[in-house]
């Protein structure tokens, strides 16, 4: 089943700069990003909103161009979208006029026979636990179920890398925890490299092999925090809490400095 297993490739980002032109001003969004993602690794990226973390994913998937530096998948520079890389957005972005199975079929890149298509779609519906909902339309599904379809669609080409852009940000707290467990299960089953962007620190620690903290404007990798805890992780574990504190400190250092002035 996992024919691609042997040729999983690393993702290498070197000296990446990205800026936007707004009127005559240039706004630096990302600055000097250097990152190597091992095949099969799960990386969490946290940062305040507007820090450029979503832009980083859009660059990796190939939706944004015009950058300086290098983004390599294996040894090939990324120039546009490819079936090697999949993406899940915050909104499921399902086509409301297509049923669950047709939405997943839309994700298939390249020519396949009808028999192969049916088989792959069936496998992926099962993978995300939506058996029995093949013929449902998106508006008949809950937010969590819609996001499952979106994950199935992104995985249908068996990509090397799956990019997750705040995928559970729009879900309620209970569904979110449920979906985190699901994505972990899928990751362990498929051995896909995963890059998750989130502003939920607990989610980042719960899922990631390491957590990257991105600073605000321009976005730089401020800290790289390995999470060496065995899975499944317990959110109330001593080490979990310690890492959470460490990350919190990255975001709220300024207030502490202010306090020193007062003393």
């Amino acid at each position: 089943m996992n024919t691609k297993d042997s040729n999983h490739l690393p993702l290498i980002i070197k000296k990446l700069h990205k800026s936007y032109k707004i009127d005559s001003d240039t706004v630096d969004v990302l600055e000097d990003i250097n990152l190597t993602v091992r095949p099969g690794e799960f990386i969490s990226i946290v940062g305040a909103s507007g820090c450029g973390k979503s832009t980083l994913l859009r660059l990796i998937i190939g939706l944004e161009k015009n950058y300086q530096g290098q983004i390599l998948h294996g040894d090939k520079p990324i120039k546009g979208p490819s079936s090697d890389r999949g993406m899940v957005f915050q909104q499921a972005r399902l086509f409301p006029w297509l049923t669950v199975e047709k939405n997943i079929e839309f994700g298939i890149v390249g020519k396949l026979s009808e028999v192969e298509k049916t088989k792959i779609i069936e496998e992926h519906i099962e993978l995300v636990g939506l058996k029995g909902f093949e013929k449902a339309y998106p508006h008949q599904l809950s937010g969590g179920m819609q996001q499952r379809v979106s994950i199935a669609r992104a995985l249908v080409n068996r990509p090397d890398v799956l990019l997750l852009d705040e995928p559970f940000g729009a879900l309620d707290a209970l569904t979110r925890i449920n979906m985190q467990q699901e994505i972990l299960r899928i990751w362990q089953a498929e051995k896909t490299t995963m890059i998750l962007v989130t502003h939920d620190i607990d989610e980042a620690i719960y899922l990631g092999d390491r957590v990257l903290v991105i600073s605000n404007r321009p976005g730089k990798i401020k800290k790289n925090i390995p999470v060496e805890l065995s899975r499944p992780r317990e959110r109330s574990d001593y080490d979990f809490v310690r890492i959470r504190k460490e990350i919190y400190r990255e975001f709220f250092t300024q207030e502490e400095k202010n306090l020193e002035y007062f003393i």
Partner: protein
Amino acid sequence: MAEAKSIYGNQLRSKQIKILTKLSHYPAALIVPIVILIFWEIMSRNGYVKALILPAPSGILDAYIELIKSGRLFDNLLISIFRVAQGYVVGAVLGVAVGILIGLFKRVEIAFSIVLGFLRPIPIIAWMPVLILWMGIDEGSKVAVIAIGSFWPILINVVSGIRSVDDKYLEVAYIFEKNKIQILLKIVLPSALPSIFTGLRVGIGIAWMCVVGAELIASASGIGYLIMSSREMLQPDIMFAGVFSIGLIGLLIDSSLRIIEKRLLKWNSNANS
């Protein structure tokens, strides 16, 4: 998947509730017209309103039954409906085709902008004398005026439907490396469909108004002619029967289009609610 099952269950239940509340609306919807009819009937019978100007509802009903019995109503209606069908098909095909081209290609829009901007404000009826001059007083001019009338609302709605495609959907298509034809067929057109349907519905309403207008101006048959000729022959009851038939047919056309739309656009939760 308990979560999922309960969602289906809820939908079924909410559907039943919807039907019930709809039924309970009907008596309220009927009260106003019934009160108006009773008031009108009383006014006519007591001679406050002259029958020659406004006949009593009962008199109009009699004329209606007479028109149906003699076949005059259906013969004339059929002629009008046939004219509408011909003109509407031409207007709709052109409206959808030109609309798609303008919606998709900026250059086509620019090329057509002055011509369309100039033609659009012209009232449809103003074309009638021109079309009679060109095509004579027969069917041609009537079909043409219907085609022009239905063309505009369809064109405008198709263009706005094509334009309003969500960029987020296009990004998904781009990620999955779809070509332009696949994007057009699988994303742009389906997402424009509700808007296209709105255009088609407005278009048929206008087509129906156009045929009556055209027949009032110059015709020897059709529902508009029936109204005009009964005025000349001082038969106000028949005149009103004709006028009301127009409303009735219009209502019928619109509600059947709504049903078709609901069936075809099952996925569109906005249309269903």
